[in-house]
């Protein structure tokens, strides 16, 4: 046995796709460790995971891992349609990366380019034992990857669904459950160490009934209490699972009703605020909070002006298409939000290239007036 040379060890990080979020995480999701994302449903965990599956394919200078990823999901339906939408906009934003990779493989056709979805392996599991068996089989996939990019990212979405239904609330079952946690986490960590993987696991939250202070308290992390949607919450699966992960991130979601600008009284403007907190991480000692915005193209920080501009432009182009921009400003934004949900996003950008500039400017003005995302999908 030989000690490892610390000066040669410098783990890679996988970018989240937004430079400001990366900065708050000191570079992104680290390799060789397990990062857990805890959030209520509808907060954007799956969106963040899907984005990671794509950014992992970026080359290392751009912050990616230049690797394929493995997506293990336990909740249904599988967000494949959403993955395709994200892959499409991802390909167009990083077109130089994908064009160059295709030109090296086939010089004849210039239109065929590699699809990011080719480098994502998706697998469902239904029980915890199935997950452990899958991890055992994963060894061979990690040693001999079927594509030219090695697998360096494993995403499990979500781990809570596997454990919350099978086990009763008596001490015997709980003990069996916690030993399964350590078995799975031990296997994941040894694979992460051996192959240099980044592992991302999502988790759900439960409501908190008792106090969490003092020597018997279960308070984890520096946040006094975790609030999401106005309720005090706590990550599920208990303190045993909390020992199994290396870092924990919390996404909170709050609905805020904006003040009384509404004249007609029919529409109430709701603003959804999503924030990313770092609960604990060995390399991030200070608790960080970052406001998130979700758009149809990506998840990004509220302060990321480039992405904001892109998002604004596309939304106002949509608005012009629907010809409802004469309505009052607040109600318009709500209507846009609802309409966007029904339309597919992939085709939008191609149709609406020819709009004039003042419309975009007006769209920007709306967005500055109402700083916030009213719909998590756009």
């Amino acid at each position, binding site marked *: *046995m030989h*000690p*490892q*040379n*610390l*000066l040669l*060890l*410098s*783990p890679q990080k996988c970018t989240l796709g937004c430079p400001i979020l990366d900065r708050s995480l*000191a570079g992104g999701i*680290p390799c*060789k*460790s*397990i990062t857990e994302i805890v959030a209520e449903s509808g907060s954007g965990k799956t969106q963040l995971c899907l984005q990671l599956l794509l950014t992992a394919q970026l080359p290392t200078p751009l912050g990616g891992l230049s690797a394929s990823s493995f997506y293990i999901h336990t909740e249904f339906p599988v967000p494949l349609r959403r993955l395709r939408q994200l892959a499409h906009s991802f390909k167009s934003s990083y077109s130089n990366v994908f064009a160059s990779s295709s030109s090296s493989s086939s010089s004849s056709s210039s239109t065929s380019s590699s699809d990011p979805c080719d480098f994502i392996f998706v697998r469902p599991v239904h029980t915890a034992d199935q997950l452990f068996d899958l991890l055992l089989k994963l060894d061979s996939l990690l040693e001999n990857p079927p594509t030219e990019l090695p697998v360096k990212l494993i995403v499990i979405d979500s781990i809570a669904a596997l454990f919350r239904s099978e086990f009763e609330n008596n*001490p015997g079952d709980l003990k*069996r459950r*916690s*030993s*399964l946690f*350590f*078995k799975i986490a*031990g296997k994941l*960590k*040894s694979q*992460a*160490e*051996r192959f240099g993987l980044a592992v991302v696991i999502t988790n759900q939250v439960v409501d908190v009934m008792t106090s969490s*202070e*003092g*020597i*018997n*308290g*279960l*308070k*984890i*992390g*520096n946040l*006094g209490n975790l609030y999401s949607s106005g309720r005090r919450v706590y990550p599920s699966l*208990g*303190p*045993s699972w*909390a*020992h199994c*992960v*290396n870092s*924990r991130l919390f996404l909170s979601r709050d609905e805020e009703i904006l003040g009384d600008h509404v004249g007609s009284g029919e529409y109430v403007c709701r603003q959804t605020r999503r924030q990313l907190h770092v*609960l*604990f991480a*060995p*390399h991030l*000692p*200070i608790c960080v909070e970052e406001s998130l915005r979700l758009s149809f193209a990506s998840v990004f920080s509220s302060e990321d002006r480039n992405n904001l501009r892109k998002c604004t432009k596309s939304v106002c182009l949509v608005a012009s298409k629907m010809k409802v921009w004469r309505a009052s400003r607040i109600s318009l934004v709500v209507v846009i939000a609802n309409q966007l949900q029904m339309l597919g996003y992939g085709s939008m950008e191609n149709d609406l290239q020819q709009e004039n500039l003042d419309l975009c400017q007006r769209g920007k003005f709306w967005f500055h007036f109402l700083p916030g995302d009213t719909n998590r999908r756009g």
Partner: protein
Amino acid sequence: MEIDTLPISASMRGKLISTGYISLASLSSISPSQLAQDFRVRESEAVEILKVASVNGRVGNSDGFVAGAQTAWDMLREEEFASRITTSCKEFDHILGGGISCKEVTEIGGVPGIGKTQIGIQLAVNVQIPVDYGGLGGKAIYIDTEGSFMVERALQIAEACVEDLLGKGTAWKEFRASQPKLSAKNLLGDIFYFRVCSYTEQIALVNYLEKFISEHKEVKAVIVDSVTFHFRQDFQDMTLRTRLLGNMALKLMQLPKKFNLAVVLKNQVTTKYSDGSFRLTLALGDSWSHSCTNRVILYWESNERCAYIDKSPCHQSASALSAVTSKGIRSSTSNCSRIKLM
């Protein structure tokens, strides 16, 4: 045995006999301060006399002092000079009696995210503080079982430590130039980092440690983070686990005595079902709790990190506040940062 057969100076012998101390038995029950007072000698000389008397008395005595046994007196003298590793937080050091002791096994446990790994990294850096600055000037072995050791964080803590040390010098620039060895990179280079991924590896490594340390005599601290992770999986029979843990505990307890270094173990918490409710306790059970000399539990108290001495043979139960900053572990800066005696 008589006084006149003792190998002490003639004048001392004369004084002893004239005052009435003829046999060794009379010397055995006297304290050095009394002896010093009686003869108007320095206390150190009195100690010497008593030591000589006790040694000689032992050799001829057939009651059987075991060869190699130490008297409690000797141990007390040794303990006063025993070195300690500072944790960079004054209150924490105070409740530990000056820092982590170099002859004992200390166990630190707490909920996830409270800073156990941070304390481990801080100790691995602090043990390397040169002797000129009041440290031990030794190297550290860091055994990582969970993968929480982040090199960039260790570099941050090492840089802050170097800054703190060199900033204390009066002629700052001169000091810095004369200490080229004291850099963050060198501090990191002197930490022997092992990563283990299963319990068999962990046991093998602990068995190998003795050989490793005898080859690298400058090691003064062994930090295991954490000792419980691989043992919380399902074992087919729990007696195997107890046996393995017992063996490991024994090996880990022998290291401080033999090589005069500090062993710091990290532990996790678990919920114990007792009397119909769940309580938080340190993991690995009651049999493990006998293995460590000192036990420290870390917990949250209204946004402050609190360290509580749960078990210690020489320090009373007390708690102290500490904080984890970008420089590592430091004293908490809140208004009510004081030591609470429980």
